């Protein structure tokens, strides 16, 4: 059983910890870095509640080992807002009621952030494909799609 010092840049900050090789990235983020916005839902690569950006790409942090993130850049839901100013995606979720219980929301936001960074003006179909790895049991997805469209529009206008 090996242990490793893992150093990541997460939400712009350099953080390190000594972890066992088998530690999952999501547990590293939540239990060691104390960033508990990233949720553990199914723990079986299905629900997407643990989605974070690794080098700008959406990944399920329950299906990566923390050691694999050594030297890499991560972004979690805590990194979206700039101070008190909400990210356009967060604003969209608020404006369009893109959540009810909120459990899936951090993962949903990070998947949408990954999508918009690759495709800033997605069609409705592309948004639905883009969030296909995230389950929401409350909203029926309709308002989440609207929220992502709101963010895409706002970001296109430079907001």
């Amino acid at each position, binding site marked *: *059983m*090996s242990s*490793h010092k893992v150093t990541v840049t997460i939400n712009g900050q350099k953080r390190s910890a000594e972890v*066992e*090789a*088998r530690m*999952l990235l999501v547990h590293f983020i939540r239990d060691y870095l104390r960033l508990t916005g990233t949720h553990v839902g199914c*723990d*079986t*690569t299905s629900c*997407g509640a643990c*989605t974070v950006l690794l080098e700008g*790409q*959406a*990944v*399920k942090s*329950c*299906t*990566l*080992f923390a*050691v*694999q993130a*050594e030297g890499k850049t991560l972004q979690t839901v805590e990194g979206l807002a700039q101070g008190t100013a909400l990210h356009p995606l967060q604003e969209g979720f608020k404006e369009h009621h893109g959540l009810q219980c909120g459990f899936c929301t951090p993962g949903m936001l990070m*998947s949408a952030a*990954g*999508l918009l960074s690759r495709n800033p003006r997605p069609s409705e179909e592309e948004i639905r*494909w*883009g969030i*296909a*790895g*995230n389950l929401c049991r409350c909203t029926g997805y309709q308002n989440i799609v609207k929220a992502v469209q709101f963010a895409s529009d706002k970001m296109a206008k430079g907001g």
Partner: protein
Amino acid sequence: MIPQAFDYHAPKTLAEAVGLLARFGDDAKALSGGQSLIPLMKLRFAGPAHLVDINGIPGLDYLQEEGSTLKIGALVRQAQLEQSPVVKAKFPLLADAVRMIADPQVRNRGTLAGNLAHGDPANDQPAVMLALGAQVVIAGSKGERTLPIDKFFIGTLTTALNAGELVKEILVPIPPANSGGAYYKIERRVGDFAIVAVGSQVTLDKSGNCQKVGIGLTNAGPTPIKATKAEAFLTGKAPSEANLTEAGRLAAEMSDPASDTRAPADYKKAMVQELTIRTLRTAVARAKGGAA
């Protein structure tokens, strides 16, 4: 869920990686995308004592055309295939299939090589690569060997890879003009494993007959299946409805699905037949449309 403890290795070269795999033998697994392996480790169906992470090896993420071959390196992610203009333009079968694999996050990590090396008949890429007639380049401590994909799948979760070997690249022949392909997948919900799926690839000759036919079946037996009887029947024949229907029947005859929570075996067989007919129909239409 916490996997069993293991030692983690992050080699910086392919030689170092195969050296480690050779040293630890059956106690080691290579880690690429990890989207099949890590879930299995979390469920403790797999418990390798050593994990050899190849993600840090530079130069394995190439996706390049070389002559009449598309070379796909071991670290090419499914998302890279999905977004590739070459795949879109020349491999409609692969383009159809890759967007049906799991979900965007999984496709951002999962690799083609890993998808094949996992040896799961429920994975989509084995059938696609069988239909396209790909070759697998295997690296080991004693050098490299190249294996046609139809010799690669031995049993459920078992491939021709020996302990100490890994898939280094996949060579896919670029279909000539007048070729087309298609992949249809029946699934309970988006991102799930297939109930069954079929991939077909057809090249037409000048008179419009089927010059070359490749048909791969997903989740239709204990291994991915190349429907050789259906391929042989259709080769040299006109793609008439009657011939496509017979090819569908022969593909279903070669399938050997088990009844499970997804569907009973007879339903799966019936769907193999129908999807074979439909994918062939679309493949022929695309071949006639000029696009590969």
